[in-house]
């Protein structure tokens, strides 16, 4: 009986939801099929005639600067470029890439350097707080073949004075990410250090290798949205947001094991690479070749 009542109560929201949906549909205006014969000058016309076609059969060469967002320990600043070809005005194919020429430590990293504490439990994770910046993970480069889809093309006006052609695009592809992380510390290495006796001796043992780095390449999906503001027939400023989820060890610490269970596992390895939703903002300037854009539907004017 109790189970039946529970089931019934669970169904009430579902029934309520169904009723709301049906009610909404019933009050919505009824659409009736109708053929419209527009006889005026707009009969059969596209939304815009003489639209500047900025992308169709044109190459785009973009120079950009990109900065990662919401980083825990360090944020990367990239310089790079993008090469795209657009077979149509709404589709592009090409590649985006960048090299990180600067890494800016976050306030949290500064706090760990200044106040981090080391004891017998976390000595493998933080053997030397002052050298913490040497152990954090960094993105070194990114290369991403991708497709761009440009569904929206329009213009915007600023203070009713300045008008700029613009388009909105989404993109997606595969990203190859060059990473630099703290070098692996095996369980044998860790146990050798842990068996050295006093904490100060253990700290010295772990600190020897804390600055060692390993390079690897991660592969991840990448996607995002962007806005192009056309400053001239051949030049656009682009604002773009990009996401790329992948797993890496951002802190160089021992993270594996259940949070409430078997921590630490006394090793720094691939088990400590945790999933992160990495995302970034790009400001770029795109040059288009050939330099003159086409015009749409000119034969219909």
């Amino acid at each position, binding site marked *: 009986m109790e189970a039946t009542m529970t089931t019934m109560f669970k169904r009430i929201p579902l029934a309520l939801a169904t009723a709301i949906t049906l009610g909404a549909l019933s009050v919505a205006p009824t659409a009736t099929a109708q053929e*419209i014969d527009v006889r005026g*000058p707009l009969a059969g016309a596209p939304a815009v005639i003489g639209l*500047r076609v900025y992308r169709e059969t044109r190459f785009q060469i973009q120079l950009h600067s990109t900065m990662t*967002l919401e980083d825990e320990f360090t944020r990367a600043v990239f310089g790079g470029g993008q090469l795209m070809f657009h077979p149509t005005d709404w589709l592009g194919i090409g590649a985006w890439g960048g090299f990180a020429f600067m890494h800016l430590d976050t306030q949290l990293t500064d706090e760990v350097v200044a106040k*981090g504490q080391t004891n017998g439990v976390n000595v493998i994770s933080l053997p030397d707080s002052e050298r913490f910046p040497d152990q954090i993970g960094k993105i070194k480069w990114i290369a991403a073949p991708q497709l761009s889809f440009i569904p929206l093309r329009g213009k915007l006006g600023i203070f009713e004075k300045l008008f700029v052609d613009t388009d909105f695009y989404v993109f997606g592809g595969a990203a190859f990410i060059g990473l630099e992380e703290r070098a692996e510390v095996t369980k044998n290495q860790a146990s050798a250090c842990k068996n050295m006796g006093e904490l100060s001796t253990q700290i010295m043992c772990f600190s020897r290798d804390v600055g060692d780095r390993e390079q690897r390449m991660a592969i991840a999906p990448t996607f995002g949205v962007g806005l192009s503001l056309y400053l001239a027939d051949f030049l656009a400023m682009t604002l773009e947001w990009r996401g790329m989820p992948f797993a890496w060890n951002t802190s160089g610490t021992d*993270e594996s094991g259940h949070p409430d269970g078997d921590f630490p596992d006394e090793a720094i390895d691939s088990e400590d690479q945790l999933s992160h939703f990495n995302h970034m903002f790009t400001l770029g300037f795109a040059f288009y070749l050939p330099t003159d854009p086409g015009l749409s539907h000119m034969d219909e004017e």
Partner: protein
Amino acid sequence: MVLKTPTRYVLISALCALVSPALTHAQDMSFDLDEAESDAAPEADAEAGGEAGAEAGGEVEMGGEAEAGGGAAAGGGGDLLDELTSDDDMEEEAGDRAPREKEVVEEIYAVQRMYVLRNGRFELAPSVAFTVNDPYVSHPSLAVGLNYWVTNVLAVGGSFLWYQGVESESDLNFSIRRSTRLAVPITQYQLGAHLNFTYVPIYGKFTMFNSAIFQWDSYLVGGVGMVRTRPVAVVDPAVRSFDFDWRVSFNAGIGIRVFLSKYLTVFGEMRDYMYLEKLENLDVRLGEERESESTWIDQNATLTNNVSLHVGITLFLPFTFEYTYPK
């Protein structure tokens, strides 16, 4: 934020209920012959100042804005199908639902009207907000705003945000404590209430595959209000607990609003709520002073930025409006 399945059903359905009538209203257009003949086009139209077709630099646009006057003149609330069939209501009521042909003529006007007039209208804006700048604790909220448009580009209004119960602490806090023996002081929010101005300096329109046209604008928002917060005890949770208290908060942001009809929009907004926070004291006093509440709070206030991404809809009231000048 994880919603239980029944709650999700209700929210999705409520969203359907709000959006479904609007879907058939998107992009009002009037091709009505009578209207086109009766409304003589004047040489200039003050209301059209912001949407003059000439600014396109040679582009000739059709359909995208010719609808602006028609919807209002017809008084139909902006429904394309209603307007197209408005002359034949009797036949509709008689139950004649068979496909049929209708002749319409569309006029081109030298200067087009603005798609929507906002002055003198209220704007109700429910939304959900997500924290984008705090990796330690997330402050999502349910928000609602109410604006009154003094002019077409300037509004005054207020907003209310509810946080308690939907906040969540990230795994990063636990990881930091475990790996570095550092406690990061965090706070919990209960609610916020703000007064603000909204100004629209940027507007535009998009065509999708050179067929449908979407009107949109970008706006700046800013103001002052109060937010009710309290520290979360992470340094000495065995002894310390905190009550909510009010803080003065300033906010500034930028948003984008896309019109689905003359009264319904979807919007996204990035707003920074700034205030001075009293965090938990990282030092724990010994002896009897440990129990003294005066030692629990750090006396130095910390400037806190809660940058939130709002996503929601806005509803303009009244639904219809009238242009001052004829087409």
